[in-house]
C-alpha cells in the first residue's frame, strides 16, 4: 500500500512522480525553489496542478477532472509557521479539527491529543503565549486529531532553535511509533531527514532525482545531481578502463580498483563520501587488505567540535581537493595539520561512479 503521486504543473514547474510507503515517514528534500512546498500543497489540495494523479489506497484525490477539496481529504497539515488560529486557545485549535465529534467528547479527545504531543499544560493558552516548540506541538496535535491517513509537514522545524529541534525529532518519532500515519516531511536539512525519515525523496527543479530508503539514498546517490543535492563534496572526473584484465578507475596518475564491471574505455564522474575516506595510519601501513592507497598533502583543517574536516590535495592531482572527516583527537595523534603529508584510502565499494546518460 502506498501513496502514488504524479503531479505536473507549469508555474511553478513540476514534473514529479513518486510512491510513498504507507505508514512510514518520508522526507522530501531539495534546495529552495525546487518545488517541494508546492508539491506538498498540491497533495493538500491547496494547489490545483495542471495535471495531477494522486491516489491513496485506491482513492483518487486529483486526476485533472475531479479535484477532491482539501477539507474532504483525510490529511493533516502542519504549515511552516504552524498556522494556529490566533483567537483560539491551544485546546480550541485542536477542537477545530474535531467538529465532527459531538460536544463533550470533543473536548476530551482534544485534551488527549494535546497530551500525546506533550503540551497538555498549554491547553488554556493562546498561541501568542506559546513558545515556538509549543506551537509546533499544538499544530501537530491539531493535525493528528483527525486521525489522517497522510500527515504533511512543511519545514516544521525551521523556525525552532537547534536544541528544541533535537527533542522535537525524538517526540515526532515517538508519536509516529504510537500512531503510524503516513508522513511526508518537507525539509532542506539532510541531517533532519536522516534522523527522522525512513524514506527519502530528492527533488530538484520540480523533478524527482532519487527516491528510496534514506540510508541507501544518502550513501548511494545514483546521479551526479543527486550527489550534488546530497552535498557530497568529493565529486571528480575520471576514466573507466580495463587494465590488465581488471576494471579500473583512472584518476589522474592513480589507478583505483572499483566494485563494478567496465567494458571499454570511457570518461566518467565519480564521488565518495568524506566519511568513507580512510586514514592510513603510519603505524599500520598499507597492507594487501587495503584498497586504493593515495598520498596527498593536507591543505586545510577545520575543527567542528568532536569532528574535524581535513582537505587533502592528492599527489599528481594539482588543484583537486578532497574532504575527509576524522575525529578531532586523531588530528593530534597522527599529527595532521596543514602542510603535513598523509596517506589515505577509499574502498572500492565506496567509489560511486556515474556514467554519463
Amino acid at each position, binding site marked *: 500500500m502506498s501513496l502514488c503521486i504524479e503531479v505536473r504543473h507549469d508555474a511553478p514547474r513540476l514534473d514529479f512522480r513518486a510512491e510513498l510507503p504507507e505508514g512510514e515517514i518520508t522526507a522530501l528534500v531539495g534546495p529552495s525553489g525546487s518545488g517541494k512546498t508546492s508539491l506538498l500543497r498540491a497533495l*493538500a*489540495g*491547496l494547489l490545483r496542478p495542471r495535471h495531477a494523479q494522486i491516489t491513496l489506497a485506491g482513492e483518487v484525490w486529483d486526476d485533472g477532472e475531479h479535484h477532491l*477539496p*482539501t*477539507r*474532504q481529504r483525510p*490529511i*493533516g*497539515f502542519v*504549515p*511552516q*509557521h*504552524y*498556522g*494556529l*488560529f*490566533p*483567537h483560539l486557545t491551544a485546546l480550541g485549535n485542536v477542537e*477545530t*479539527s474535531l*467538529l*465532527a465529534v459531538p460536544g463533550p467528547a470533543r473536548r476530551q479527545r482534544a485534551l488527549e491529543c494535546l497530551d500525546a504531543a506533550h503540551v497538555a499544560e498549554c491547553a488554556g493558552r*493562546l*498561541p*501568542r503565549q506559546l513558545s515556538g516548540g509549543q506551537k509546533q506541538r499544538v*499544530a501537530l496535535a*491539531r*493535525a493528528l486529531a*483527525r486521525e489522517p491517513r497522510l500527515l504533511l509537514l512543511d519545514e516544521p522545524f525551521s523556525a525552532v532553535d537547534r536544541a528544541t529541534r533535537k527533542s522535537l525529532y525524538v517526540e515526532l518519532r515517538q508519536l509516529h511509533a504510537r500512531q503510524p500515519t503516513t508522513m511526508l516531511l518537507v525539509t532542506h536539512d539532510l541531517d533532519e531527514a536522516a534522523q527522522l525519515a525512513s524514506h527519502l525523496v530528492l527533488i530538484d527543479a520540480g523533478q524527482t532525482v532519487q527516491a528510496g530508503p534514506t540510508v541507501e539514498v544518502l550513501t548511494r546517490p545514483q546521479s551526479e545531481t543527486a550527489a550534488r543535492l546530497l552535498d557530497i563534496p568529493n565529486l571528480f572526473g575520471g576514466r573507466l578502463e580495463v587494465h590488465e584484465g581488471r576494471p579500473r578507475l583512472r584518476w589522474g596518475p592513480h589507478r583505483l580498483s572499483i566494485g563494478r564491471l567496465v567494458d571499454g574505455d570511457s570518461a566518467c564522474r565519480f564521488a565518495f563520501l568524506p566519511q568513507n575516506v580512510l586514514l592510513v595510519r603510519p603505524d599500520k601501513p598499507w597492507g594487501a587488505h587495503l584498497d586504493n592507497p593515495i598520498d596527498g598533502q593536507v591543505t586545510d583543517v577545520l575543527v567542528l567540535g568532536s569532528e574535524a574536516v581535513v582537505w587533502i590535495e592528492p599527489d599528481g592531482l594539482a588543484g583537486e581537493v578532497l574532504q575527509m572527516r576524522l575525529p578531532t583527537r586523531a588530528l593530534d595523534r597522527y599529527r595532521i595539520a596543514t602542510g603535513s603529508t598523509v596517506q589515505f584510502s577509499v574502498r572500492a565499494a565506496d567509489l560511486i561512479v556515474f556514467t554519463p546518460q
Partner: protein
Amino acid sequence: MDWPAISLSLKLATATLVVLLPLALFGARQLARWQSGARPWVEGLLALPLVLPPTVIGYYLLVAMGGHSPLGQWFEQATGATLAFSFTGLVVASVVFNIPFAVQPMQRAFESIDPEVLESAKCCGLSAWQSFARIELPLAWPGMLSAAVMTFAHTLGEFGVVLMVGGNIPGETQTVAISIYDRVQSFDHGAAGAMSLALLLVSLATIAVSYGLADRLLKARRT
C-alpha cells in the same frame, strides 16, 4: 435643538447600517481574496465616494433616482411616492456614498488574516461557511465594528449629497447637518451652535473608538 432633525439623522444612519453592512461584508471578503488585474479598478470604483465632491455623487444619484429615471419612475408606480426627495431615496444615497467607509475597514481586516490560518482551517476539515463563521469573522470583527462606527458617523455628518438628493424637507429629509445650515440662515445661532457641538462630540468619540479598534486588530495579529 431640532429634535426631529436629530431623530431623522439617527434613523438614516441606522437604516444605512442595516442595508449596507451585510452587503459590504460580503463584498469586502470577496475582494480580500480576489486575485485579478481588474481588482484595483473595482477597488477604485468603490473608493470613488472618498475622492469625488459630494455634488458629483449627488448629481449622479439624482440622475439615477430622479423623477425621469427608470428607477425613480418604477418606485413612484410601486409606492406612490418619489424616490428622490424622500427618506428612502436618502437611504439609497447614503448606502452608496458610504460604501468605502464600510468596505475598506472590513477588507483590511480580512486581508490581515494570515493565509496559513485560512489554509489550516481547510486542512482541519472546515467547510467554507464554518471557516467564515469560526475563523474569519472572529478575527475580522474589529474591522467590522470600525466599518459600522465610521458609516454611522459619516452618515450623521453628510451634507452635500443629502441636500441634493433629499432637498430640505423637515421631518423627511432634513438631517442635522442641513438643519444647522438652515438655522444659520435663519440667524438662529443658538440652535446651530448646540447641534454643531453635539455633532463634533459624536464624531470625535467615533474616531477615537475606531482608532482603538484598529489598535486591537493589530494586537490580535501578533501570535
